[in-house]
């Protein structure tokens, strides 16, 4: 905007219902703003972001010939776009606008009305001074690469991948384990309908394998992500499987032929309750149906001195390749869906429950495997002594809802404990007691499921178990595991002898969540769950455009919610792709050629190598397509020759002066 045109600013302060006006005196702020240089209109209004609020801005621009607009309301991260659009609707360049955050940074964090109002006024003064220097800018539009990467092949990742693939988009599904399926593959049945987990999961897993639009990379990890929304370059590390999954038909002949005659290594899928050989197929329904060789256990891979009977057995199919090497593959995608799931709380962290000390204390996931017909015992539930249990207790909230471990409710353990309680009752007729703090059954059909558990004779004792021990104070306790718990509803402490104690361990973020977050440039909540952009309004988006989250990596949830989120994330990715392009904030830096001395100080500081040296002119230049607007070079140029749109030096100096305006 040329210097001679006089500044005509419109100022608006929002009450946000009562959110702001309860703490900040909005009328006083409006009155104050009206005294500031260049302000032509100053108003306060109940909801600035509503249509009438936006209309107010548009009208005023036309009526009062405004050429600058300032809105004091919530965080610009929330509504800056809304108001820029309103400004544009008034025929003004949308960047001749500045927003003041007096809700998140003021009304919501202060109680003293006078101090909060003074703070609002200072912030407003800063914005009004700053906006006078704003120039009209043009947002640039970046194209979107239509391919999508899905990280994690649990139920959430599978569903997201299928949704996108069915919509005709090419999807790369990257799963760390040798098979997709995630935790759900380990379950026997699923609440609240008690349908067989395998029956509903396996068809989806096969569909992934056979879908023409899905590239499935199991036993793989994302090593590196470069670029930005619409234009990511991803490096995927494919670990050596030593079996070519396209040649392997899953006949298992190699496994039978392996020089290890009996399986002797703990099988992680069954949590070590059964054994496997160095060459194995993770579980019967695994996708891909292809063997894997564990390099830490295979004699050939460890010592090079094996008869390689597996290779012989595979014969002409030649699927086994003991020379396979890890591969790094680079792909280009426009958006990324993260569905890396959760890990379970380690029950050893609560020694009072005796997990790892008493053999008949186990976790719910172990019980899932034990009652599963494909599990280590073929679905028969036995104590370690071999006898069937007669009294089984479930301890809920193990590691969850506890300030010492995990503060959150894990959301599924009430329900899956009731599921397992019903199964145990059905299969063994044992007396089953569930020790709980609160039963959380808020889903559709869940309360009914609770009722069914009660009807089936599952006992419920409300109290957080204090201790599991084998100290017997009376003969009927001898040889049993004794639980000490207050029956809080009855109002006394009880000792309950049991022969099987099941710990409903809660969900935790994956161990490598921080690393993933870094690779994908996301944020984590303090606990380590991936952080959504807004807990209500943008639950599957992240602060990084083009990166979405689904399933338990965002927080504990059950299968229906995981699938709902996966669908939502897929829809967000589709919306992005089909929009064809994305507007980018024009906050790039630029060098004023006539001022630059060519000192080159800035060049090495740019993280994106956006600055180069023009040898002919002997000046530095910034490539606006590469600059992402961090401003590091601007802060460094020793002669002040670099500008940055939206964050010019003078604009910031004005802001500093303004915030120090103590009224």
């Amino acid at each position, binding site marked *: 905007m040329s210097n001679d045109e006089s500044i005509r600013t419109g100022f608006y302060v929002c009450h946000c219902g009562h959110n702001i006006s309860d703490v900040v005196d909005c009328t006083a702020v409006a009155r104050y703003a009206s005294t500031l240089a260049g302000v032509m209109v100053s108003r306060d209004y109940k909801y600035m972001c509503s249509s009438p609020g936006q209309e107010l801005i548009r009208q005023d621009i036309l009526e009062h010939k405004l050429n600058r607009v300032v809105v004091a309301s919530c965080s610009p991260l929330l509504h800056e776009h809304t108001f820029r659009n309103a400004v544009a609707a008034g025929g003004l360049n949308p960047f001749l606008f500045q927003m003041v955050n007096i809700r998140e*940074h003021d009304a919501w964090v202060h109680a003293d009305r006078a101090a909060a109002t003074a703070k609002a006024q200072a912030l407003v003064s800063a914005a009004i001074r700053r906006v006078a220097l704003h120039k009209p800018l043009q947002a640039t539009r970046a194209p979107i690469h239509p391919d999508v990467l899905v990280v994690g092949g649990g139920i959430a990742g599978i569903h997201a991948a299928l949704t996108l693939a069915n919509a005709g988009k090419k999807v790369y599904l990257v799963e760390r384990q040798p098979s997709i399926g995630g935790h759900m593959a380990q379950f026997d049945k699923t609440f609240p309908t008690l349908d067989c987990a395998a029956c509903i999961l396996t068809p989806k897993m096969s569909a992934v394998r056979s879908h023409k639009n899905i590239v499935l990379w199991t036993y793989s990890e994302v090593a590196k992500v470069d670029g930005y929304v619409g234009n990511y370059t991803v490096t995927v590390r494919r670990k050596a499987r030593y079996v070519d999954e396209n040649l392997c038909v899953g006949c298992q002949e190699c496994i039978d032929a392996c020089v290890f005659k009996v399986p002797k290594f703990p099988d992680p899928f069954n949590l070590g309750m059964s054994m496997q050989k160095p060459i194995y197929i993770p579980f019967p329904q695994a996708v891909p149906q292809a063997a894997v060789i564990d390099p830490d256990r295979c004699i050939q891979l460890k010592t090079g001195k094996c008869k390689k009977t597996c290779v012989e057995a595979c014969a002409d199919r030649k699927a086994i390749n003991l020379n396979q090497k890890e591969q790094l593959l680079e792909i280009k995608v426009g958006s990324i869906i993260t569905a890396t799931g959760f890990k379970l709380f380690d029950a050893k962290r609560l020694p009072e429950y005796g997990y790892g000390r008493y053999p008949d204390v186990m976790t719910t996931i172990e019980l899932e495997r034990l009652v599963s017909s494909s599990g280590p015992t073929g679905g028969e539930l036995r104590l370690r002594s071999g006898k069937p249990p007669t009294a089984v207790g479930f301890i809920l909230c193990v590691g969850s809802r506890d300030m010492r471990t995990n503060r959150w409710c894990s959301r599924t353990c009430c329900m899956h404990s009731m599921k397992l309680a019903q199964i145990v009752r059905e299969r063994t007729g044992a007396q089953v007691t569930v020790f709980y703090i609160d039963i959380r059954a808020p889903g559709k059909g869940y309360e009914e499921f609770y009722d069914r558990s009660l009807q089936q004779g599952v006992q419920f004792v409300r109290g957080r178990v204090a201790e599991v021990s084998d100290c017997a104070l009376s003969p009927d306790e001898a040889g049993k595991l004794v639980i000490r718990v207050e029956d809080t509803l009855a109002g006394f402490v009880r000792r309950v002898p049991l022969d099987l104690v099941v710990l409903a361990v809660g969900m935790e973020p994956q161990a490598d969540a921080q690393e993933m977050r870094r690779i994908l440039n996301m*944020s984590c909540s303090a606990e380590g769950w991936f952080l959504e952009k807004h807990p209500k309004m943008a639950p599957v988006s992240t602060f990084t455009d083009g990166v979405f989250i689904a399933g338990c990596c965002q927080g504990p949830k059950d299968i229906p919610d995981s699938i709902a989120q996966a669908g939502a994330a897929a829809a967000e990715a589709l919306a992005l792709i089909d929009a064809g392009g994305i507007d980018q904030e024009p906050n790039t830096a630029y060098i004023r050629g006539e001022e630059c001395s060519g000192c080159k100080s800035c060049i090495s500081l740019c993280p994106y190598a956006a600055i180069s040296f023009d040898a002919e002119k002997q000046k530095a230049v910034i490539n606006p397509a590469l600059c992402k607007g961090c401003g590091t070079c601007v802060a460094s140029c020793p002669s002040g020759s670099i500008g940055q749109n939206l964050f010019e030096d003078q604009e910031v100096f004005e802001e500093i002066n303004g915030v120090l305006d103590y009224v």
Partner: protein
Amino acid sequence: MSDMNWQPRIVAFFCSWCTYTAADLAGVSRFRYAPNVRIIRLMCSGRIDPQFVLCALADGADGVLIGGCHPGDCHYAEGNFKTFRRYRMILRLLADMGVAGDRVRLEWISASEGERVKTVINEMVERIRALGPLDIPGRFAACDSEILESADAIRLPQCKETHDVVPEVVHG
């Protein structure tokens, strides 16, 4: 400025991705903290020109708070490291200029650390309260009172005044 009514004035420069977002989260979580800090948003802590820090102090801030993403988490890879190096040097410069190092503080606060925003701001306000007013404008005025009688026109190079003069005037 009378000591009785004095309240610490702190200017904060927060990066948009981590610390500013964390301050938003502190708001959403309704953490109450002292109202003495005024936050200025920049895209990256790497945008913080040491001039901004000095300007804030020269304009009357009693302290400056710099917030950025944790090392390794910078949205722009390493802007925060550049800030950190500048910060170490600024502290030495300020020490030589008689400004206690505690008046300028750098903190890494990630987007999820809303509670940390509260703690850091409260601590900072208490620290500045303990140090008392810096009041550089007041010091300028007090110092310059010695020349008032002989000068016919006095213009002082606080950036409060220099920013709005035509760019061709040097210094400030």
